[in-house]
C-alpha cells in the first residue's frame, strides 16, 4: 500500500517537474486555462450575488393597496372586511400612514428630508399577502383589488423581481453555454499539450515499451500531468474571480452607499470553489486521456 503510494507520488512529482521544466510555457498554459474558466465562474458568481439579493428583498410576493388620502376610518373597516372575505388572499396587514412615515424615516436614512416636511405625504395602506405565487394570478388579483372603493392604487411589489428572475434564468443558460464551450477549449488545450509531450518523449516511450512497460504505466504520467495542469488552471481561475470581486467591491461600495445600502459582492462559496477545482482537474484529465488514447497506440518500437 505504502509502496504503491510512493510510486504514484513519484509519478506526480515527475508530472510537476514536467510542467515547470519550461516555466513560461507551463505558466502560459495555466493562465489560458485560468482565464477561460474564470469567465463562466465569474459570471456565475455575479449571478449568484444578484440572486441572493433578489431573494432577500423580494421574499414572498405581496400587493400594496394605497388608500385615497381623504379616506375615513369607516371606509377602511369596510375594505378590511372585503379583503378578509377574498379567497385569494392569505393574510392582510394594515399600515396606518403615521407608522409608514416612521418606517420610512428609519429604513432609508432620509430622516432629515422627512423632518422637513410640513405634513405626512403618505396614505394609509394595506399589505396583502396573496395565496398564489404565480405571476398571472397575482396580476389578476392586483387588478381586482385596484377597483375596490377607497383604493387609490394597487401595486404588485415583487413584479420587478419576477422580471429579474426571468432575466437571471436567461443569464444562467448563457453561463452554461459559455462554460460548455470553454470546457471544450480546455480539453483541447490539454489534448494538444499532451500530444506535444508524447512527441518529445517518443524515444522514452519506445524504450519503455521494449523493456516491458504496460500501457497504463506509460499513460499514467500524462494523465497526472493533465489533471495537475487542470487543477492549477482551476486555482488560477479561482484567484482571478476572487481578485476581480475584490477590485469591483470598492467602487460598488461607493455606489451602494448612494442608495443607502451595504451591498457587497460575496466570493465563491466553498462548495462552488471545490466544484470549480474538481471540474477543471477532471477536464485536464479527460483531455490527457483522449490525447494519450489517440497518440500512444501509434508508437510501436521497431
Amino acid at each position, binding site marked *: 500500500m505504502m509502496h504503491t503510494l510512493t510510486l504514484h507520488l513519484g509519478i506526480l512529482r515527475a508530472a510537476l517537474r514536467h510542467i515547470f521544466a519550461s516555466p513560461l510555457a507551463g505558466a502560459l498554459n495555466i493562465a489560458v486555462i485560468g482565464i477561460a474558466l474564470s469567465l463562466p465562474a465569474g459570471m456565475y458568481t455575479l449571478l449568484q450575488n444578484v440572486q441572493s439579493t433578489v431573494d432577500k428583498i423580494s421574499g414572498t410576493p405581496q400587493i400594496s393597496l394605497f388608500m385615497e388620502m381623504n379616506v375615513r376610518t369607516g371606509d377602511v373597516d369596510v375594505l378590511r372586511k372585503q379583503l378578509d372575505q377574498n379567497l385569494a388572499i392569505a393574510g392582510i396587514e394594515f399600515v396606518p400612514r403615521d407608522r409608514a412615515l416612521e418606517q420610512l424615516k428609519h429604513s432609508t436614512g432620509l430622516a432629515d428630508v422627512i423632518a422637513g416636511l410640513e405634513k405626512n405625504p403618505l396614505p394609509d395602506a394595506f399589505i396583502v399577502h396573496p395565496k398564489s405565487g404565480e405571476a398571472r394570478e397575482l396580476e389578476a388579483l392586483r387588478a381586482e383589488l385596484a377597483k375596490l372603493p377607497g383604493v387609490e392604487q394597487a401595486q404588485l411589489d415583487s413584479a420587478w423581481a419576477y422580471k429579474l428572475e426571468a432575466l437571471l434564468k436567461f443569464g444562467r443558460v448563457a453561463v452554461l453555454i459559455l462554460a460548455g464551450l470553454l470546457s471544450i477549449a480546455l480539453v483541447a488545450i490539454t489534448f494538444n499539450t499532451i500530444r506535444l509531450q508524447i512527441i518529445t518523449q517518443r524515444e*522514452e516511450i*519506445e*524504450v519503455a*515499451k521494449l523493456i*516491458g*512497460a*504496460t*500501457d497504463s504505466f506509460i499513460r499514467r504520467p500524462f494523465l497526472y500531468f493533465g489533471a495537475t495542469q487542470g487543477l492549477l488552471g482551476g486555482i488560477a481561475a479561482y484567484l482571478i474571480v476572487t481578485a476581480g470581486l475584490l477590485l469591483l467591491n470598492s467602487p460598488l461600495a461607493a455606489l451602494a452607499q448612494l442608495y443607502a445600502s451595504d451591498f457587497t459582492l460575496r466570493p465563491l462559496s466553498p462548495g462552488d470553489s471545490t466544484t470549480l477545482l474538481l471540474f477543471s482537474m477532471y477536464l485536464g484529465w479527460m483531455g490527457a486521456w483522449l490525447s494519450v488514447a489517440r497518440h500512444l497506440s501509434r508508437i510501436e518500437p521497431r
Partner: protein
Amino acid sequence: MISFNQVNKRYPGGYQALKNVSFNIAEGEMVFLTGHSGAGKSTLLKLVAAIERPNSGSVLVNNQNVGVLKGRALPYLRRNLGIIFQDHKLLFDRSVFDNVMLPLQICGFDHRESVKRVRAALDKVGLLDREKSHPIALSGGEQQRLCIARAIVNRPAILLADEPTGNLDADYARKIIAILKSFHQVGATLLISTHDSNVLSDTGVRVLALQHGELQPAPTGAVPT
C-alpha cells in the same frame, strides 16, 4: 527455452528476411548468431521479443507462442528478456543510474531494493563510478556496457544481444563478451548476434549461421556442441 519452428518473416514490400528457420536453444545455453549484414540476425532477435511477428511458423519462448501473443501480454514477456540493442536505446535526458533504474520502475520494484540492484548491475559492467554521469558523456564502449547493465538489472532468464561488439576494438569486444559469458555461467540463456570473427573464434560456443534468411547447416570456424 527458445524454439523456432519453420519460421518465415516477410516485411511489407515483399522482402523475405527469414526463410523456414527452425532451431532450439536449451535453457542455460549460450548461442552465437552470425551471418553477413542483412542476413536476418536482427529480425530473428526481434521475433523472440515479439517486436516483429512471423508470417508463418511458431516462435516459442518459455513454451509460450510469442508470435500470437496479445498486445496486453507483451510487457510481461519482455520483462523476462534482457535486450541489448545494437543502437543502445539509452535515454539521454537522465543519468546512468536512472537509465538502469527504468526497468525496475516499470516492474514496480521497491525503491530501496531497486537502488541496490542498480548498483550491483553497474558494478558488474564496471560503471559504478559513473552512475551520476549522463550517457552522452560515455564512450561507445561504456554506452554498450550501460545497455548491458540495463538489460540484466531485472535478472532476466534470457539475454538477447544484437551486435554487442559492433564498432568496438578487439580488446574491448573481448571484455564485453567476458561480461556476457559471466551471465551464462550463472544460468542465463544467451542469444548473441555478431559478425565479429574474433568473437566467433571463441570455442565451445554453438553458432547459428544465417545466410540470406536461411539457417546454414555447418557453420565455419566454430565447434558445434
